[in-house]
């Protein structure tokens, strides 16, 4: 017992020494940069050192006295603040503070009236055959045999797939959308397309779930949707949408104009810029109270430091003045020009 506490004591002694040594070193480095602003690489280096230090602290926290733990944690936080200050000094454009909010931020917003959707009559559940014997499946199979389902006649959710160099809008959806319904929509395998599914007087619909996959060089204009948006593998695109939840995976160079009440997340993404939904595309926004700014979470960068994979650009992305392509464009050259003007890769290099 005593030998154990003894070893803890020795450990905490030696840890304190090494921790304070590396902390002072880091501190003096930061102080040195006060005169000459550090380059981005310097800042990254500092951040990496700090991350190492903070990791060492969390590893050791089990064997440290509470007071010491608290002290060291505040010291690390102060260093973090200093490094963050360098970052903001280097990039004064960003307006948002990247604080991780408490998870209950959005609780104040009113729930959408989705509860009124009439529940479908749901079939009885099927349990595993080895504990119930013949399941209800067999019990209900006495009906006259039908021909095997033909994949061509089976309606799925709405799907917009395999197009290139086109302007796509409501009439291009495979089946008519009945007004007032909120079908789920899958958009996949498009390249160099503009998709405009903003609500019009003729097509006032919205969507529930959105599944977006494999797009390159596309501009998507979508309405506010009640469901979640799940996005995979898109490159050099512009997405305009409102949704309940937003998840983007394995995508690069995407501008996202978003209206959302929860926190959007990205995972294995790079070069993502977030802005708010342009009110030009939804005039009713001007009458509504502005939504609190969202916090993006990068699941590939779960650390105290800021993720290098995305930035928040607020309303600065020309978002209010841009001539959004809301009218159908049939001319291929004109389409190509509009895409060049909008897509992140072409705009950021010009």
């Amino acid at each position, binding site marked *: 017992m005593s030998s154990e506490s003894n070893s803890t004591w020795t450990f905490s002694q030696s840890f304190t020494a090494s921790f304070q040594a590396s902390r002072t070193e880091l501190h003096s480095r930061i102080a040195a940069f006060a005169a000459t602003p550090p380059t981005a690489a310097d800042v990254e280096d500092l951040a990496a050192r700090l991350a190492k230090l903070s990791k060492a602290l969390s590893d050791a926290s089990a064997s440290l006295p509470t007071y010491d733990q608290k002290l060291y944690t505040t010291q690390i936080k102060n260093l973090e603040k200093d490094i963050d200050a360098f970052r903001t000094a280097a990039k004064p454009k960003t307006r948002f503070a990247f604080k991780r909010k408490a998870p209950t931020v959005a609780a104040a917003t009113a729930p959408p009236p989705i509860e009124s*959707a009439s*529940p479908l009559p749901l*079939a009885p559940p099927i349990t595993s055959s080895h504990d119930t014997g013949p399941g209800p499946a067999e019990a209900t*199979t006495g009906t006259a045999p039908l021909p095997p389902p033909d994949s061509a006649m089976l309606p799925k959710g709405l799907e917009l797939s395999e197009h290139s160099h086109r302007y796509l809008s409501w009439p291009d959806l495979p089946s008519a959308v009945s007004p007032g319904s909120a079908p789920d929509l899958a958009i996949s395998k498009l390249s160099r397309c503009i998709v405009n599914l903003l609500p019009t007087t003729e097509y006032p619909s919205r969507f529930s779930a959105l599944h977006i996959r494999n797009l390159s060089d596309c501009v998507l204009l979508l309405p506010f949707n009640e469901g979640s948006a799940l996005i995979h593998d898109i490159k050099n695109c512009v997405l305009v949408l409102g949704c309940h939840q937003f998840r983007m995976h394995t995508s690069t160079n995407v501008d996202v104009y978003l209206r959302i009440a929860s*926190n959007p*997340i990205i995972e294995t993404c790079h070069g993502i810029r977030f802005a708010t939904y342009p009110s030009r595309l939804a005039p009713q926004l001007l009458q509504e109270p502005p939504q609190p700014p969202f916090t993006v*979470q990068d699941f590939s960068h779960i650390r105290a430091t800021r993720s290098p994979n995305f930035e928040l650009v607020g309303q600065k992305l020309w978002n209010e003045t841009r001539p959004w392509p809301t009218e159908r464009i049939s001319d291929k050259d004109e389409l190509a020009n509009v895409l060049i003007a909008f897509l992140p890769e072409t705009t950021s290099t010009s």
Partner: protein
Amino acid sequence: MGLLSIIRKNRQKEREMRILFLGLDNAGKTTILKKLNKEDISGISPTLGFNIKTFVHGNYTLNIWDVGGQRTLRPYWRNYFEQTDALVWVVDSSDRMRMEDCKEELHSLLTEDRLAGASLMIFANKQDLPGSMTEAQIRDVSGHRRSPWLGLWARTENRIKPAWRFSNHQVLALQSIKSHNWSIWPCSAVTGENLVTGLDWIVNDAANRLYYSSTALHKAIPTQTA
């Protein structure tokens, strides 16, 4: 109140059950839990880490662990396996493109030693969406002797649902699961449809295993008093 009933009451207090909610991201695990707990479901963000909910359901206190399903978090699922009495696998029935992924993740969980014996319930969530697959389509379809029948059943029971392509296509291959007692429930976290009934099933199934003697007793009591 006799001594026996006091002892029995006391024992009831200890009846706890640990239930693990897993599934791909966007399946609706957190939303289901919040709906079950009658909380607001409008501003739920994707789960970074996990949530724990403890509530009383029937005679049992449920400790429900809801772990985030993003790809980066899936390697951490194993940290939650210990002492799990029941596993709830939540499926986004509208996510046709990732059913294969969903199947693989589920079947790899079922080979885990630490989950051996746990009851398994599959929630085929998002049945409120018009493009969702029915639970019969998700269950198992391929190459199985019973498959044409099951497909048929799906069509006749629920005509408004679009059917899945049945030919040679395994969806979750549930019929091949022999290691766990399982059951699949179509549900909707938005409307609340079938959430409680599904939970009833898994709690009873786990209870029959964990508290065999006392559940048997319990069943006997009403008939005595009636």
